[in-house]
């Protein structure tokens, strides 16, 4: 089975090539079907691999395809790493990916770029699979930038809108900033260890700091990789592209900007746990940045009115929690949250897509309300998603978030209290969103109200399946107080293990759980009270600051973008034209002046001279050859 792993990325690649090359003549039915079937086939293979590794962890290993770069001492094979971590991600990507493909066949049905859309979507999945399958950092980087390209193309999918293409450009450029960090980290690894392959690198690190390598080096490598993760997984300070990325079609937001691509940074650090275990400074940095992002983004989500923007900031915030987990050494908890988040956040995005579909493109909460009456299934599945993300016991998000908060408490109680504050905000903004959208009375136009309808089956079925996963997905990782077996940890154990995570006593764990659940319920009630009588006054004070996202975009614009452009203009005008070129033209005029004097003697045509020169040189050659001959 392991040797068939190349099929997993191959199917979407074929789908991409067929739809991409024949986009002009491909009928809609076929292109959508082709792309979805490719995903289903990948999912089937992934499932086979998953169960094989579950039964026998030794069944995994490295699958070598061909030598990618082989030059002197630099040897980068094109190889895939098949193990517990990558097979779990394969399942998430192809499984959730398949559902979103099916959903898209209906959601995008009337779009003229239908075939192009599916070509891009298949390409994305191909690149994402390379990212998680790569057996070394270079192959990971190929996928890493590949998903960046797919994201760029899909954010700017409706290319006629300038703000959309601006958003796509911003996403790619901010990711490139992170990518430079990734590259430097990779070169540092190659410099100190002579390899970028996991199979050669990590065994050297298991026993502790290798000889000749300092702790600072490990911290530097880990921080450089983390800079890459900041870009891809939208952490402070490189997060501002993700909310803008909501310009893309909503299923894209669900797949790329919630469930899969943005978790690449978490995958990277979990994969590199051996590096991070030797880099305590980098670990603390990861935890602090993650926590800060979780709180900061949650605060912005409190005051957003665009249904997708709320979900986008929520995603940034949830990613922050995952980094918090990584930073405190609870790698498997981070991966656990990646999984549950993929379920409930994909569900929430697709649910919002169903709403937007019914509203004829409207995304503003202020013009919604009471939609539950017309779209019962969307409402119920969305509610389940909200309960999961808020962390209500029994739903998937509860288990994974609880695990992260417990690990944070064990490391440092301050992490826990701040993390809890973020969780409370999460509960509030999610239920604010839910109540504004589905309860109360409709606030849009009559025409919109008339059009309200439940979405077709191709959209509803993925919602229902994801809702089921969002509810039960957490049972693979029951907390210690409930069960001795943590299925996910046991599965991942051969590849990733938590590092230095203290176990809490059962009493403490019960107490923390009770505290958070109690407060979360209070927040939901608060959200209900606040949204009961909708009143959209203009925000003032801190609310206004939150509505305007802390003015971070404006800050970046004024501190980085504008000064750089100004510098470029000044250089172009003065250094280039007046400066260097001025000197050159001065020399030129001098020569020209000189040649004008000469012109009195000669006929003055540069061309003639040059031609004479050519003829002379040619003759020289010819004569030379003749003499020899």
């Amino acid at each position: 089975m392991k040797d068939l792993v190349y099929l997993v990325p191959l199917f979407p690649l074929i789908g991409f090539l067929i739809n991409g090359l024949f986009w002009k003549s491909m009928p809609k039915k076929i292109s959508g079907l082709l792309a979805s079937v490719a995903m289903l086939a990948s999912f089937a293979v992934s499932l086979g691999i998953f169960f094989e590794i579950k039964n026998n962890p030794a069944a995994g290993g490295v699958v070598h395809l061909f030598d990618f770069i082989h030059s002197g001492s630099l040897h980068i094979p094109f190889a895939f790493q098949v193990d517990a971590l990558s097979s779990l991600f394969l399942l998430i990507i192809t499984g959730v990916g398949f559902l979103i493909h099916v959903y898209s066949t209906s959601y995008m049905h009337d779009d003229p770029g239908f075939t192009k859309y599916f070509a891009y979507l298949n390409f994305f999945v191909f690149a994402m699979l390379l990212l998680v399958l790569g057996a070394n950092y270079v192959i990971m980087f190929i996928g890493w930038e590949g998903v960046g390209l797919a994201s760029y193309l899909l954010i700017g999918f409706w290319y006629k809108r300038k703000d959309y293409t601006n958003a796509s450009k911003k996403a790619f450029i901010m990711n490139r900033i992170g990518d430079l960090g990734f590259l430097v980290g990779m070169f540092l690894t190659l410099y100190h260890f002579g390899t970028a392959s996991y199979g050669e690198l990590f065994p050297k690190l298991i026993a502790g700091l290798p000889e000749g390598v300092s702790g600072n080096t490990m911290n530097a490598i880990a921080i450089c990789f983390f800079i890459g993760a900041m870009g891809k997984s939208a952490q402070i300070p490189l997060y501002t592209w993700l909310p803008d990325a909501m310009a893309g079609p909503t299923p894209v937001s669900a797949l790329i900007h919630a469930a899969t691509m943005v978790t690449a940074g978490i995958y990277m650090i979990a994969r590199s746990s051996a590096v991070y275990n030797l880099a305590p400074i980098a670990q603390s940095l990861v935890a602090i940045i993650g926590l800060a992002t979780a709180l900061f983004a949650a605060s912005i989500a409190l005051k957003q009115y665009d249904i997708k923007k709320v979900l986008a900031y929520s995603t940034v915030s949830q990613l922050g929690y995952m980094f918090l987990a990584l930073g405190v050494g609870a790698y498997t908890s981070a991966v656990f949250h990646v999984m549950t988040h993929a379920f409930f956040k994909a569900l929430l995005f697709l649910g919002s897509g169903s709403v937007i579909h019914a509203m004829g493109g409207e995304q503003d909460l202020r013009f919604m309300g009471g939609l539950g009456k017309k779209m019962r299934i969307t409402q119920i599945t969305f509610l389940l998603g909200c309960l999961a993300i808020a962390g209500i016991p029994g739903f998937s998000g509860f288990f994974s978030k609880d695990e992260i908060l417990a690990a944070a408490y064990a490391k440092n109680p301050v992490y826990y209290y701040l993390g809890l504050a973020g969780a409370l905000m999460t509960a509030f903004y999610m239920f604010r969103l839910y109540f504004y959208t589905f309860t109360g009375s409709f606030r849009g136009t009559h025409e919109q109200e008339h059009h309200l309808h439940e979405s077709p089956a191709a959209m509803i079925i993925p919602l229902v399946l994801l809702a089921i996963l969002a509810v039960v997905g957490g049972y693979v990782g029951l907390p210690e107080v409930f069960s001795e077996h943590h299925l996910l940890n046991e599965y991942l154990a051969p590849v990733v293990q938590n590092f230095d995570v203290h176990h809490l006593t059962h009493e403490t764990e019960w107490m923390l759980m009770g505290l958070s659940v109690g407060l979360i319920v209070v927040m939901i009630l608060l959200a209900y009270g606040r949204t009961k009588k909708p009143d959209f006054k203009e925000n003032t004070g801190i609310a206004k600051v939150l509505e305007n996202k802390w003015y971070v975009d404006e800050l970046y614009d004024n501190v980085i973008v504008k000064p750089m452009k100004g510098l470029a203009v000044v250089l172009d005008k003065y250094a280039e034209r007046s400066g260097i070129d001025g000197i050159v033209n001065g020399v030129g005029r001098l020569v020209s002046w000189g040649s004008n004097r000469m012109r009195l003697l000669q006929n003055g045509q540069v061309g003639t001279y040059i031609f004479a020169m050519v003829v002379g040189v040619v003759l020289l050659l010819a004569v030379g050859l003749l003499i020899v001959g």
Partner: protein
Amino acid sequence: MILLLLILIPFVTGLISFTWKHSSVKSWALGSSLMTLAIAFIACLVNRQAPLAYDMPWIASLGARFSLYGNGMSVILALLTAIVFPVIFIAQLNKTVEDAHRFYGLMLLSQAGLMGVFLAHDLLLFYFFWELALIPVYFLCSTWGGERRIPVTFKFFVYTFLGSLLMLAGIIYLYLQTPGRTFDWETIRQTGASLPALQQCTVFCLFFIAFGIKMPVFPFHTWQPDTYEQSSTPVTIVLSALMVKMGLFATVNWLVNILPEGTAYWTNTVMILSVIGIIYASLLAMVQSDIKRLIAYSSIAHIGLMSLGIFANDPGGIAMNGLVVQMFNHGINITGMWLIVSMIEQRYGTRNLRELGGMAGSAPTMAIALVIIAFANIALPLTNGFIGEFMLFHGIFQSENPYHITFMVLAGLGVIFGAVYTLNMVQKVAYGEAKTAAIVSDVSKNELFGLIIIIGLIVLLGVYPRLLFGIIG
């Protein structure tokens, strides 16, 4: 003999072209270039077993010999030259040029000169071909170009002629030092290496200014945006895809290899200039509104990374291999870029970014090609642009130079800036609403053929770069 054919075919067919006063001269030139391409392929295959060489007496009185030699780098560049010319000629098939016989004659002569530069193993022969490659270009620029072509060609001429004079002085100096008065590469190398440090440093300057202008290295670059802007597309392609490689190649073959102490002395200076060039040219590329000027500055930034790689001197020699790969791939990609630009100009009647837009709607195939080539230009993995850039960065990072990390990181800023100006261009050309009511036709058959060759190479060499490593050896 194979190497000699690479020079003789374009040279002879070029001379014949001057007398071919009929529009079928296009097909003649294309036929010639295809023949050269076939020979170049054979040369690459044969050269893998044993380096090709050709040698015969030339100017006996001076001790100069007509001696050619194919190492990995020179054969790759000869192959690039052999690929680029037919691509240009295919794109020209449905266009008309005035005085076609002279145009094609000069183009082919220039090709012969380029081949000679890459293959010459004798310093005087090298100089001869250097001029043979350049002189037709002066004519090509000054006869077939934009409105400001005359002053611009003059500037180009002054720059390169100044360089050539300095180089000639250096050549004569080295020649006079050789035992038994010869221009042979091996003897020149031994002579150069045995020179006292001070002399090496001086001769280094004489050569490097000539090569640096050709690359170009900051601050010798200002001829380039003007010349690219004013030349017709075939000439711009020759200049940017091939002639800049003359400077890079010569720096490796006739400078770094010849004058070790001079190189060591000037390394940090050149590396600093290269890094400045990368950042400076990238910043300038961001504020250009003429696509041709934008690509010119982008190319200067790319060349900066390559010249950094020449002087990296890493123990594994990865930077040098990366340089070879990148020289080839840069030539392919920039050729593609100019083909697209010329199609845009032909259809929209402008190259001004402010007046363009909406190509994805009006000419989708062109827009797709533009996006692919643009991403190759910014070195997206799985395009050919990534391989060379990755190896160059790696080599610079592994260098024993004490500032290796600083150089790599600063040069790495070019990766970010490159995304900024390239995506800006793509956005302004391809996206948004069309700004003209004119109906724009998508690619024609011969244009599509040219683009397929370029894009095919971009993907093939990006996914399976071993094809190139095989030739480099």
